[in-house]
């Protein structure tokens, strides 16, 4: 059957959307797979000149010393907008243009996919509307500003907890109505077929680059590749080109506060979908999801908004089931310490999402680390500054810098 990955995948959407998915599948095959009208050439050229690709692969000297191995960082934080997300957003907006669509919609949680889509839409002159949970609009003000500056409409979603899950549902509702003129730019390797393949295809440029870069630099392939996984686009992008190589692939999920769930409250205090989720149908695909015994989707949690999602891409779920990818969890505290470690020792402030992959290095065994690691820095941490400081202080993370600098000025001035 098409559109599935082992047990996962499929197209669990209202009938009204099926023709659009069929059309999208056709466009995917024609433009993306077969480069019709030079689509992929234009995509790569725009990602180069507008998006800043290729991103560098950098040796992390301090981490390499710390773990007594060679750690290389794939610097997706240097992509325009500050995360790997633009690669997918630009690919899809461009595809929508080739398909003759007139309008773009997208959902966003932390705001990274929303800002990426808004940028891509402004760049390609497409009207754009972003759905964002009310809770998220309030806690991610700077990203709302950025989307509005890029002239995107931002529509807060007042349903439920007002976070990513609700925003996706709302975007799907818009699409059910506007499907004839509108393309829905989904933000990760999730959703109904062909989205998981389409997004993975765009994002696999990450591992195309890093595989070439590490060989050019060291003459060999890495022992392992490490990437954080929310929906899984960063992980799939970082892994895809290595799938047929003898390279260990590690996906790091958000362990949140704890791996135990409160089923009565419908809350999982983590986003460890791959580790603790079970098979279910969410947002158009069969995959691993966080759900209660009845099949109701649970509210997930992570200190990192971009990993805070109850589902995961079906292909990644399948690769984990098949044993090709190892899934790990890193909890909030270890991730926060990871932000500080990378900031202090390498001069790179990573996104909280990325910090889960960084944190995992602390917990990995020597053989998991191996001789050479490529870790994808999926985004920069500018969006997370306030959260990192608040949460690190609250939890007494020892690496947390003090912020005494904000104290009021000492009165008068003497020579001390």
């Amino acid at each position, binding site marked *: 059957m098409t559109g599935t990955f082992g047990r996962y995948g499929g197209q669990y959407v209202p*009938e009204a959307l099926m023709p659009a998915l069929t059309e999208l599948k056709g466009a995917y095959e024609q433009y993306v797979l077969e480069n019709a009208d030079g689509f992929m050439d234009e995509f790569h050229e725009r990602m180069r000149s507008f998006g800043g690709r290729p991103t560098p692969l950098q040796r992390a000297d301090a981490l390499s010393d710390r773990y007594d191995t060679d750690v290389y960082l794939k610097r997706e934080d240097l992509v325009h907008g500050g995360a790997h997300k633009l690669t997918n957003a630009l690919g899809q907006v461009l595809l929508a243009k080739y398909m003759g669509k007139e309008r773009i919609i997208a959902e966003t949680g932390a705001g990274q996919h929303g800002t990426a889509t808004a940028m891509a839409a402004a760049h390609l002159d497409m009207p754009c509307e972003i759905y964002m949970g009310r809770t998220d609009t309030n806690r991610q003000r700077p990203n709302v500003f950025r989307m509005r500056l890029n002239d995107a409409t931002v529509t807060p979603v007042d*349903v439920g907890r007002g976070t990513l899950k609700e925003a996706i*549902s709302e975007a799907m509702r818009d699409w*059910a109505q506007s499907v*004839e003129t509108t393309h829905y730019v989904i933000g990760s390797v999730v959703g109904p077929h062909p989205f998981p393949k389409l997004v993975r295809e765009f994002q696999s440029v990450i591992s195309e680059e890093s595989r070439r870069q590490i060989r050019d630099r060291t003459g060999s392939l890495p022992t392992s590749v490490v990437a954080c996984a929310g929906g899984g686009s960063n992980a799939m992008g970082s892994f895809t080109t290595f799938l047929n190589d003898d390279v260990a692939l590690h996906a790091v999920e958000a362990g949140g506060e704890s791996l135990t769930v409160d089923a009565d409250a419908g809350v999982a205090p983590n986003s460890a979908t791959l580790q603790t989720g079970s098979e279910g*149908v*969410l947002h158009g695909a069969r995959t691993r999801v966080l759900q209660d015994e*009845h*099949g109701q989707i649970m509210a997930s949690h992570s200190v990192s908004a971009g990993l805070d999602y109850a589902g995961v891409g079906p292909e990644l779920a399948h690769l984990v089931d098949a044993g090709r990818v190892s899934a790990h969890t890193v909890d909030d505290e270890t991730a926060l310490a990871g932000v500080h470690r990378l900031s202090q020792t390498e001069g790179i402030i990573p996104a909280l999402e990325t910090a889960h992959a960084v944190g995992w290095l602390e917990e990995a065994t020597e053989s998991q680390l191996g001789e050479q690691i490529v870790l994808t820095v999926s985004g920069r941490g500018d969006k997370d500054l306030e959260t990192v400081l608040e949460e690190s202080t609250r939890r007494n993370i020892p690496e947390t810098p003090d912020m005494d600098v904000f104290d009021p000025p000492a009165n008068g001035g003497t020579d001390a």
Partner: protein
Amino acid sequence: MEEPMHNSAITAAFDTGPAFVPYLTAGDPTFEASLEYVQALERGGASVIELGLPFSEPIAEGKTIQNAISRSLEGGMTPVRFFKFLEQLDVTVPLVCMTYYNLIYQYGTHDGPRPFVERAATAGLDGIIVPDLPAEEAGPLHSACQSHGLDLITIVAPTTTTDRLERLVSLCSGYLYVQARLGVTGARSDVSEQTAASLDRLTDIELPVAVGFGISSGEHARTVIESGADGVIVGSALVEIIGEGHRAGDSPDMVAQRLEAKSREITTAITKLQQQP
């Protein structure tokens, strides 16, 4: 076209003239009130009743039904209780469950739709509608329904292409659910032009055809029947009555009376009509 494998009580309900098919979310706002409301619908002249089993991610619903779903979930509705609800209902018209696939898939101790369908059959359910299950994914549920004598009701959208239409019809029994307009559920004050267009291409379908999405008054309902439908599905307009009553703190009896009155408005408007050939 494949013939339904059983004698459908649902299809039979369309025999006596244009059908009124109301929708409520079961358990909205409480288990008991909701039981009363369903019975009010029957008194108001319902031919078939659709009962929503609430799912946490109702991607095909507008605000009105989303709110109903929230109320019902907060009231403790689960699939297990839903079946108890069915068993406690004292109605004679056929009952259809409308829910999302994950709840069906998760039910029971092993994966797949069979345990749900089995239990549904014993609870007295006649049919199932799953808004997030297109023909492509409907195989397992379809065969489970056939084994247990339940109708799987499929939805035809304004965007459905001719080849897809055939496939949907071939899976369908009970009635064909025709979505009146693009978008999500929700009461509107006009009848979509898409409705007439949709019905035009369904003239040689043997199954009864019921139109839903946005029908909110007797007048709308009449127009839809005049355009050739065999029945009208009314959801948000009724659910909104429950929502308003809930917000106003009105007694379940009062709300039930309003539901009955609204139902009668629609039944009255359509029973006089003969459906178009």
